């Protein structure tokens, strides 16, 4: 065990992380027991990594009794695909990859169609397609309440109508640890086992548990262009340079992972988990700042969620 993790073991933080861990495990077991056909949405990011790790804990010595599903927009960082396949293999879980083929046929992408439309077609619509196709009645997501205002009000077990819509004004009261997972017909549940975790908790837990995460989270020299106040990495040759733009090798890392043309990097020298934790605890901007899709207006996320975005 590394030094910081060893120190952390003796501090009150561990009580806090243990409480969160136990709560998440309880939530996952509840889903396994109460729903017919659950799936875990796996987006390859750090939160997904923590969620997958917790699932392995929850059902040990059994493998988690549900598959992983990645809703692939086809614009993820190359490394994310490699990491995804390895992670599923390590966990001994079936991996479903779903791509909105109609979107592909229509050539939808973030550069040609803009971030909002791309996200709508390749992520939101695609997710609904996949849930319908496999008839999942419960889907785990890694969203946290501290991420964004509208998420702060979402239940752990979040009811979705037959059309996957979320009605923020008509949510089921959620008391104690007594989750109501009951649905009928094509209704479903989105379940958020990390609801009560913060970004700092996630990093401290990754450090404590030594959870594998993609190397994009660690600082390295990467080819970067400045665009709309964000640092965008040239991950492949699909991102056309605008006049006057020239890629620059910069020491950067990512705080969240998404479609690479929409995901801003931060300047950083943190090449170890300990350094990332230190940087995160002292961070002055929130992690979602690195996402183009949230920046349009403050209630952007709430709109997307009502439509069925995770």
């Amino acid at each position: 065990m590394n030094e910081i993790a060893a120190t952390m073991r003796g501090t009150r933080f561990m009580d806090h992380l243990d409480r969160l861990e136990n709560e998440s495990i309880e939530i996952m077991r509840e889903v396994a027991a109460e729903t017919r056909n659950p799936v875990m949405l796996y987006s390859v990011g750090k939160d997904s990594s923590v969620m997958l790790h917790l699932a392995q804990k929850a059902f040990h010595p059994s493998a988690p009794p549900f598959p992983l599903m990645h809703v692939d927009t086809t614009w993820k960082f190359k490394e994310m695909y490699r990491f995804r396949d390895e992670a599923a293999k390590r966990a001994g879980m079936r991996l479903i990859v779903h791509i909105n083929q109609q979107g592909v046929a229509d050539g939808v992408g973030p550069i040609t169609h803009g971030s909002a439309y791309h996200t709508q077609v390749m992520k939101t619509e695609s997710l609904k397609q996949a849930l319908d196709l496999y008839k999942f009645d419960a889907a785990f997501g890694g969203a946290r309440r501290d991420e964004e205002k509208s998420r702060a009000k979402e239940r752990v077990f979040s009811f979705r109508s037959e059309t996957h819509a979320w009605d923020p004004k008509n949510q089921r009261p959620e008391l104690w640890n007594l989750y109501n997972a009951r649905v009928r017909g094509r209704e479903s549940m989105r379940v958020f086992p990390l609801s009560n975790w913060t970004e700092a908790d996630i990093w401290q837990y990754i450090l404590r548990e030594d959870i594998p995460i993609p190397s994009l989270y660690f600082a390295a020299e990467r080819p970067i262009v400045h665009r709309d106040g964000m640092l965008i990495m040239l991950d492949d040759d699909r991102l056309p340079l605008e006049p006057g733009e020239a890629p620059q090798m910069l020491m950067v890392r990512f705080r969240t992972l998404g479609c690479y043309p929409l995901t801003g990097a931060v300047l950083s020298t943190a090449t170890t988990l300990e350094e990332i934790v230190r940087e995160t605890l002292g961070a002055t901007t929130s992690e979602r700042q690195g996402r183009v899709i949230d920046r349009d207006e403050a209630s952007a996320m709430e709109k997307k969620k009502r439509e069925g975005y995770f």
Partner: protein
Amino acid sequence: MDDAMQDTRAQDRATPLAYAGAAAGGMLRFLTCGSVDDGKSTLIGRLLYDSKQLFEDQVSTLERDSRKHGTAGEEIDFALLVDGLEAEREQGITIDVAYRFFATERRSFIVADTPGHEQYTRNMATGASTADLAVLLVDARLGVLTQTRRHAFIASLLGIRHLVLAVNKIDLVGFDQDRFDEICADFRGVVDNFSFTTVTPIPLSARFGDNVTSRSENTPWYAGPTLLEHLETIEVDNDLADRPFRLPVQWVNRPNLDFRGFSGTIASGAIRPGDAVTVASSGVRSTVARIVTYDGDLDRAGPGQAVTLTLADEVDCSRGDILVRPEQRPEVSDQFSAHIVWMSETPMLPGRVYLLKIGTRSVAASVTDIRHKIDVNSFQQIATKSLALNEVGVCHLSLASAVAFDSYEENHRTGAFIVIDRQSNATVGAGMVQFGLRRATNVHHQAMTIDKAAHIRLNGHRPFVLWFTGLSGSGKSTIANLVEAKLYSLGYRTYALDGDNVRHGLNKDLGFTDADRVENIRRVAEVAKLFSDAGVLTLVSFISPFRAERQMARDLMPPGEFIEIFVDTPIDVCRQRDPKGLYRKADAGQITNFTGISSPYEAPVNPDLHLETVRADPVELAERVVKFLIDREEE
């Protein structure tokens, strides 16, 4: 930090996972409540801001939004930080419970921000259910209001032990000590009705920060802690580790034939390998073999830990059971008294069957009696026939089968339940058990030597309950008699329960009101269950007009054993046949509450068998029933 706590910490390190949840110092969950415009959201925003939990981009969004929607002029409107949803921002009120997170060097906090608007009181109960402490805001100008009394009541009802009275907007009364003292005295009059462990009044201004995170120079007369200081240092009692051991079984872990583990989160008490345990509802005993976790086996586990136990013997135990120590058994009963907070627009009615989720157990239940409701303003007990949205009542409940529980006061996790509407699946109520009722209390099940399986072996067939439902005169008894004769000739042990023969004996005290019809079916279903336990194939021919009661009967039996047969005859045909002359009397007004005429019949939506008597003769229909049964038995 005191020395005793450090000592505990040293022990914890020896078994790193054994202290989860037991040392509550690491995390405090609290809720804020108060009336509209008391400044709850502003207070939370202020706590986040002052404890430097906000990122630069969040502050800049806040500043931009403050100019657009804010009510604080040129200053930052902290309420915008936490009023998450668009509609709330537009209306300027918080409409749903929201959770916030912040941490200081001393503690991390989860805050439930709950609305004060009267119609959303259910959200306050929701926030309170997971909170260790409540911060109750009052506006210094307005003092103690109806809602203040209500919120103190709900906090007490939900078992919160620690209360902070945040006398907000103290700047608007000129930081006046007399006003503060007056409010404190009023409030003491309110909380004297309850048993809070601590009640801490603090004069503060959320908008300007006085006594929130730093001591105010404007209130030199106030010697107590700032709000944050109090939240950081208050010792929240947590003696769960010393209470009786309770493990509600959540999931049976069965990766292969060699491993059978019982997964769940320990509600209270501690356990070690070698300890004797009992399945609370059945009384079956065994010994803990291992405490299995992903991080290796434990030699001890305590409250809050999500573990998997394996037992030394193969015992019958599944989701919904509670593992306990043999000498510390919970109550086991199918009837108890409880406080219920009603959360639905549709009122709660006694006799209606709901689904109750208590621990990991879901069971059909109905309220047999509302003892009284509690006026949240006067705390007086008032007689009532139903509970409306946001009303709180003391109720007697009857469950379809016995469950193990503790009183909520003893153990929140084994004494709390939610009430679910069986049609909409909505959560419509929250309940807290007071005590078990009548016979079942403390009469623990004896594990029977001659059990159902033994009866089945002797009889040579599985038991079923064939439940014939339909209008009076639809042909239920005719078909049931033919089915029974056929089954008898095939060697089945059978018994027929008929509406008329049972009403002449067991149920002769019952009439035909809705309430009596419900009780009539409940008794018949219980009798059918006893026959079924004896391995006998039971044929029940009852009108059984209500879906809810037929569902209740189905839920009594193991899955697949209850077969609902809808004997479907149009009412005109029944009236024509009128084998007992009842329709004639009903039409003449000589019989009240006659099903199909003056009392409703709720036809089955998805019966196992649908027999249309106008399309086939009874012999043919009886053969269909027998064939269905034989197919079902071979499944």
